[in-house]
């Protein structure tokens, strides 16, 4: 392996069909063996630059290039460059660990008898001690990212490109990947370029920081200490987590009242009756406080949150909402269920709702049904239990940002004037006014996250569930989110967050629930 040299002269790229250039007039040199951290505002074209260096931006069909960009004086090509991207799910290519690593070697037409030794070496280098036929579907996020790293590494690239490789990982996963990368570049035989806004993670590893300007060109370039001392405030404002500049927020003083708004007893949770995810003996969500829910990958945090939020019926046991937040009306509906023979357990078939009249409703039964959120009408959830999903795109239903915020209010039958006023207020609060007419699916990651929180805030639910709200968010969005959540708490809302984020836990872990890993 020979480290690669990178050269850009007035380079720029415009994606086909776009009016604006994604990157313009970037000139720089990266010497063989250098380790560079690439920063810049969202939309400054960091990923575009990385993809260009990886040789995957495509041909003139896919965009227009200005200036020149070379790796070792040539057009970049996969193999000489290796790329690891942000989403662990999207870059696992094949079903078996060994095949996945071998994939790049096959494409480079490496002879068969050389492939497997190189696969084994690459897996050992990233510390993945697994059989070659191990299923890639059973890997954790950190393991998947190390697998992607091994896949790149097996090709023996002179230039390793990492595009936010740890943004979607829990703290253990972040450490695994960081340590693996550290070992790989230790001998200076690989040139490294990392895009990442969690600077602290990579600080010890990099010897140069490059900052791309949103309008084009390079705004700062130099050793980390120098760049961070000269541009700290500027970088923080761009969304980077600059060492020494924290979020500047302090935990609020939590209230003393701790009456449970939701409680669960002898709960078995899961999506299908024959595949329970886990059991929970007893659990209380105290009112007016922030509860944080942590646990290893696959420990059922999300499933538990969805069950408490009235979206998934419990497989057995009870979720009980306090009478104060339960709907009062005598008519309520339930999720359509299929009674599983003899066990008396339920499996959810769809989110279809049907009127609940097929069982004689005796008073205690009726009371139990009234306080079981899984039996509430969908509409009843809006002002009671709101849920922000991990993937914002899962909850978008409208064609414009403004409509997206209005939909819950319309379902509640609020007057048009009130809806307009509330939507305007939310747009302002979420810094989305400029994008009111945009399609939600076209927003950036941070904007999507803020909008998805906004859709829930719109109907002011008594309890708000957030699933990994800060995952992959830059500093600016992070601070916005924590402020929004804190404001909700101050207004008396109960908040339940599924999270891995240590800073978030420090600020909002007023009541903490940790789910033990399942064997």
């Amino acid at each position, binding site marked *: 392996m020979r480290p690669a040299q990178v050269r850009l002269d007035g380079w720029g790229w415009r994606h086909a069909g776009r009016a604006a250039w994604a990157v313009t007039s970037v000139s720089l040199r990266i010497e063989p063996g250098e380790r560079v951290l690439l920063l810049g505002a969202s939309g400054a074209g960091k990923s575009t630059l990385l993809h260009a260096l990886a040789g995957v931006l495509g041909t003139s069909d896919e965009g227009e290039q200005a200036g020149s960009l070379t790796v070792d004086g040539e057009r970049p*090509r996969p193999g000489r460059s290796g790329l690891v991207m942000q989403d662990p799910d999207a870059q696992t290519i094949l079903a078996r660990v060994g095949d996945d690593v071998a994939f790049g070697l096959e494409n480079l037409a490496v002879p*068969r008898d050389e*492939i497997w030794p190189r696969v084994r070496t690459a897996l050992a280098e990233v510390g993945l001690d697994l059989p070659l036929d191990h299923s890639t579907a059973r890997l954790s996020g950190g393991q998947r990212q190390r697998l992607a790293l091994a*896949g790149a590494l097996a090709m023996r690239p002179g230039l390793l490109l990492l595009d936010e490789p740890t943004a979607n990982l829990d703290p253990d996963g972040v450490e695994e990947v960081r340590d693996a990368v550290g070992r790989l570049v230790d001998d200076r035989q690989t040139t490294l370029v990392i895009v990442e806004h969690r600077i602290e993670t990579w600080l010890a590893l990099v010897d140069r920081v490059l900052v791309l300007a949103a309008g084009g060109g390079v705004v700062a370039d130099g050793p980390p200490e120098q760049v961070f001392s000269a541009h700290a405030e500027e970088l923080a404002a761009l969304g980077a987590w600059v060492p020494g500049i924290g979020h500047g927020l302090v935990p609020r003083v939590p209230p003393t009242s701790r009456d449970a708004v939701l409680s669960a007893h002898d709960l078995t949770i899961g999506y299908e009756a024959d595949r329970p995810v886990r059991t929970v003996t007893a659990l209380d969500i105290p009112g007016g406080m922030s509860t944080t829910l942590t646990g290893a990958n696959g420990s059922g945090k999300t499933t538990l949150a969805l069950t408490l*939020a009235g979206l998934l019926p419990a497989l057995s046991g009870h979720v009980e909402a306090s009478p104060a937040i339960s709907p009062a009306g005598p008519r309520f509906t339930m999720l359509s269920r299929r009674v599983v023979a003899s066990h008396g357990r339920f499996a959810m078939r769809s*989110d279809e709702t049907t009127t609940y009249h097929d069982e004689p409703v005796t008073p205690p039964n009726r009371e139990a049904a009234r306080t079981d959120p899984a039996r509430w009408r969908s509409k009843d959830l809006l002002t009671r239990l709101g849920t922000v999903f991990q993937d914002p795109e*899962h909850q978008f*239903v409208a064609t414009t940002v403004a409509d997206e915020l209005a939909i819950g209010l319309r379902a509640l039958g609020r007057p048009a004037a009130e809806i307009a006023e509330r939507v305007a207020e939310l747009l302002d609060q979420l810094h989305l006014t400029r994008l009111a007419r945009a399609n939600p*699916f076209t927003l950036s990651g941070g904007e999507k996250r803020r909008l998805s929180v906004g859709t829930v805030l719109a109907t002011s639910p008594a309890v708000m569930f957030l699933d990994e709200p800060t995952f992959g968010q830059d500093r600016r969005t992070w601070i916005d989110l924590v402020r929004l959540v804190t404001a909700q708490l101050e207004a008396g809302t109960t908040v339940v967050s599924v999270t891995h984020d240590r800073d978030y836990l420090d600020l909002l872990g007023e009541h903490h629930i940790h789910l033990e890993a399942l064997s």
Partner: protein
Amino acid sequence: MSLSNRAPHTLLDRVNPVTRIAAAVIVSLPLLVTLDWVSGATMVGIVLVAALALGFGVGFITRRVWPVLALAPLAGLNMALYGKPGGAVHVDWFLVHVTDNSLRLAVAVMLRVLALGMPAILLFTGIDPTDLADGLAQVWRLPARFVLGALAGFRLITRFVDDWRSLALARRARGLGDTGAVRRWATMAFAMLVIAIRRGSKLATAMEARGFGTSRRTWARESPIGRPDAVLVVCSVLAVTIALVAAVGAGTFWAVWS
């Protein structure tokens, strides 16, 4: 999937997946263009014996084949009621003509459905997609771009199932779960489409970054073709020949074009 549904280890494991597909074609083609009860019954018998000899358990065969068992009488009933009339008439009412001929057809069709369905189900059971892709690309020389693209895409399907479930739950959370099922489904389908395209293009980029689709490629694993494959093909030809010869011998042979 529960343990009992997993494919058992059989002698078929020693055969290349593409040979299994070839065998299924060999046994079904002659049966598709003929229609008589003797060849059908012979084939069903041969398949049963062969399946047991290969190592499929009786329980497994029953569990896998029951949809075909359920389907066969339905197809037969149709034939009995509406099949080409001929010979003695047993029932004659409106469009329904139950005759000797239609009854003979009914039996033949029931046996045909079994004779076609059973070998296909048992031969395709437990084929590993990765091994199949190896075979399609290396043995049958289908384009690698197509085969590997499909294989990688196949893995996304489980993710799409999860996505769809989350989309449904999110509709309930957004207050849209009570009414307007069609509209709700439309919003889910649109979101699913966007998500699928995003995931697909990310996967394509990841594949391209590993040099996929650039030029000639090698294969990390050989997709072997050997004696077991030859044996399966020969046995399939023999089985179908025996069935047809039996029909000719019994005087019931009946090609669909005659």
